[in-house]
């Protein structure tokens, strides 16, 4: 180890590994992963969120977890976004591609992608 830059490089490389252990602060993306969700393809969606959040550099402010059956099995895969002080947003019939859009527009940009929310799809 000859310089602080070398040390910093290791730290940067390891950041996404330890940031998970900081606990849940900020936004929280929850993917429904009960039997119905998994059958409808929730796992690729979950992985798309995990990878996308890291790629977008949001791993410090957004945590991605799963939960059990949310109760609306016909709309699976269901993804809920919780944000402190705001009403939760429920996205339905998600795909990895849609996930990418949610990360860009909602998590990064702050605008809810309303065409994928339960309000627009269910009506």
């Amino acid at each position, binding site marked *: *180890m*000859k*310089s*602080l830059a070398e*040390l910093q490089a*290791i*730290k940067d*490389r*390891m*950041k*996404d*590994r*330890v940031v*998970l*252990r900081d*606990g*849940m602060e900020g936004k929280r993306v*929850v*993917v*429904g*992963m*009960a*039997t119905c*969700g*998994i059958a409808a393809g929730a796992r690729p969606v*979950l*992985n798309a969120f*995990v*990878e996308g959040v*890291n790629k977008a550099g949001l791993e410090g402010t957004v*945590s*991605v*977890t*799963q*939960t*059990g059956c949310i109760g609306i099995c016909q709309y699976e895969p269901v993804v809920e976004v919780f944000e402190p002080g705001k009403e939760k947003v429920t996205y339905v019939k998600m795909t990895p591609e849609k996930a990418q859009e949610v990360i860009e527009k909602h998590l990064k940009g702050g605008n809810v992608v309303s065409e994928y929310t339960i309000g627009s799809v269910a009506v």
Partner: protein
Amino acid sequence: MIRSQVLICGGTGCTSSGSQQIQDRFETALEQNDLQDEVKLVRTGCFGLCELGPVVIVYPDGTFYSRVTPDDVDEIVTEHLLKGRPVQRLVYDDHGKAQADEFGNIALSDTSFYKTQNRVVLRNCGVINPEDIDEYIAMDGYAALGKVLTEMTPEEVIQVVSDSGLRGRGGGGFPTGRKWSLCAPNKADIKYVVCNADEGDPGAFMDRSVLEGDPHCIIEAMAICGYACGCNKGYVYVRAEYPIAVKRLSIAIAQARDYGLLGENIFDSGFDFDIEIRLGAGAFVCGEETALMTSIEGNRGEPRPRPPFPAVKGLFGKPTVENNVETFANIPQIILRGADWFASMGTERSKGTKVFALGGKINHTGLVEIPMGTTLEHIIYEIGGGIPNGKKFKAAQTGGPSGGCIPASLIDTEVDYDNLTAIGCMMGSGGLIVMDEDTCMVDMAKFFLEFTVDESCGKCTPCRVGTKRILELLDKITAGKGTLEDIDRIEELCQYVKQNSLCGLGQTAPNPVLATLKFFRDEYIAHVVDRKCPAGVCKDLLTFTIDRDKCIGCGLCARNCPVNTIEQTDYVAPGKKRAAYRIDPSKCIKCGACMSNCKFHAISKQ
């Protein structure tokens, strides 16, 4: 891409209750469910709540699973990791006190055990994988070493440590900055840094947990100390009874060498530093600094008179700085966050935090770190969860065989170096043994004295002979043969041993006796005058009797008596069908088996 991490405690406590098997089961279960690329297993150091081990934590949720068995693993994997449903029956709810979030999670930080702790020394324990230097670096590891080597002069480093108010955590409480500044100006061809990891107090395991959970922070701190004091060689003296600590420290040293964080020209600063491990054979006296150095030199571990102090003439006759593990563990944080940050915690003359190993009659056995000045009451009832089985708190022993006890009447004492010294106690290295009403204080003092008699190295007479004579007098008292003069003689002898012993072992050995005499003199007097042990512990002073009017004659006591001393009488109590039993006191060995088996509370001890 890793989306979830499972942290499994790999401290000594959880390892001995099977955390390795749990890890193996997780590996198999993750593969069976094709989750090995999404979920990472991390084996960490001690989380602190050893009572509830083996402990498993799932991130990012932070779900805290306690007392996990290998058979629970499949359920955690298929329910929680696959489907996102925390396994509620394993989630620790802090006896109903912790509130679960909307997903049914209770994080470690929500429990009363953790809520009021302030983790500085233990900040990485239970958080990082101690066998992975990269994880330590990710948590700002080696940044403090980088900072001192590239931005600070040795004098500035010592100044920061002095300003922080850090005092030696091994028990003595000597200001660390002053210790460093005493060694720094001394010139020699080689100077040494020694880390004292010879944790010998019965019931203390703080240093072990730091070495097991965060070994790199000790390496980093020793290198910083070496730079500040002009030392280029370090030794860690650690007990051979700590195999996990020794293994992780060896791995850490090898990794640090590999990265050039130990060795020559670290951070291109021209500073060389390397560390070697020396294993102690488990002699208590080797925790004393001069005896420790004598042992590193390859000789029998015996203390030597001071002066000359180690700062002038220490290891191999060269200037040496010696600090305890916990003291070192504070150093990198002080450098990174500044002296003012550290000095903002604690009391006026005791800064920072202190780690305590909670043990004895307490619900949450484990490791806690609290700011100096926290009251004993808070430690025992809030963090420690109180006394089991509804018993009453009687006293707490701090400082192990060198310390004293704090009685229930002083439970609001704010724990710091000076307050404890003022009540005739001692901070010690941080063992905190809690005792309830069933503890006999004379017996407790005897226990610690037996320990020091065994561990006295024998070099000086006051300690070798004095402690032995005190123990004999205590034996006499617990056997019911003591006199009031014996109590006076014990006190006189204690003062003599305290004042005339060569090293800390002898100078502090009488403390448990003196403290119990101060706060529980009435118990000594009860043993001597009434020939009774009020707590019902000292066997020679006990008699077990059967209340013949309560006895229904079932004979369970007689069948369980190991020495066949219980016989049936002719007496049948009114309303009972069978004759009562009685104990022959001349043959009774006072094991208590009869009493614990009697379902009718007919047997009592006095």
